[in-house]
């Protein structure tokens, strides 16, 4: 699903990384909903667990360079939580290419 290089690149572009994290998190939510009604679907579970791993790697990678994305994450010095972008800023609300709206 994700290209291996995408995850392995030590320092991806900040915005691209955030976009990838958003995409993987969204996919996790959808598979999560599916598994609630299909708890014995092993293929779906494999896909889900694989995305969990991807999400973790991507998030750790982002947080290492750009600061915590959620409460409970480590922060380098100085405290990174107050860094931009804030959720209401354009940078955090990217447009998807090919999106019509």
């Amino acid at each position, binding site marked *: 699903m994700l290209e291996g290089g995408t995850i392995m690149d030590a320092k991806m572009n900040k915005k691209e990384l955030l976009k990838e994290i958003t*995409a993987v998190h*969204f*996919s996790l939510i*959808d*598979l999560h909903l599916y598994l609630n009604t299909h708890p014995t679907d092993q293929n779906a579970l494999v*896909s889900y667990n694989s*995305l969990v791993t991807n999400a973790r790697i991507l998030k750790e990678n982002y947080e290492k360079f750009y600061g915590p994305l959620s409460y409970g994450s480590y922060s380098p010095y100085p405290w990174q939580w107050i860094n931009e972008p804030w959720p209401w800023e354009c940078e955090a609300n990217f*447009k*998807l290419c090919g*999106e019509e709206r």
Partner: protein
Amino acid sequence: MAKDKNIYTVNCPPVDTCIPQEMIIRNVRLAAAYVPYQQLCTLLSPMEALKHGTIFPELYSPYEGKDKKYKPVSKC
């Protein structure tokens, strides 16, 4: 009805092989909704899933805003 069907066949990928079509519901009641049980078929890549609003191609059912009075989301 025919028009609705056309909308779905135009905008949605063919998914007959992924959705059980042979289902027969007996003792149908009024004012009750019946949803076919979803089967896992193909999954979209995470980025495609985000663009489509679902990771399951069978569930992709875009709303055609041009048909209605519809205001596009303001751009950043």
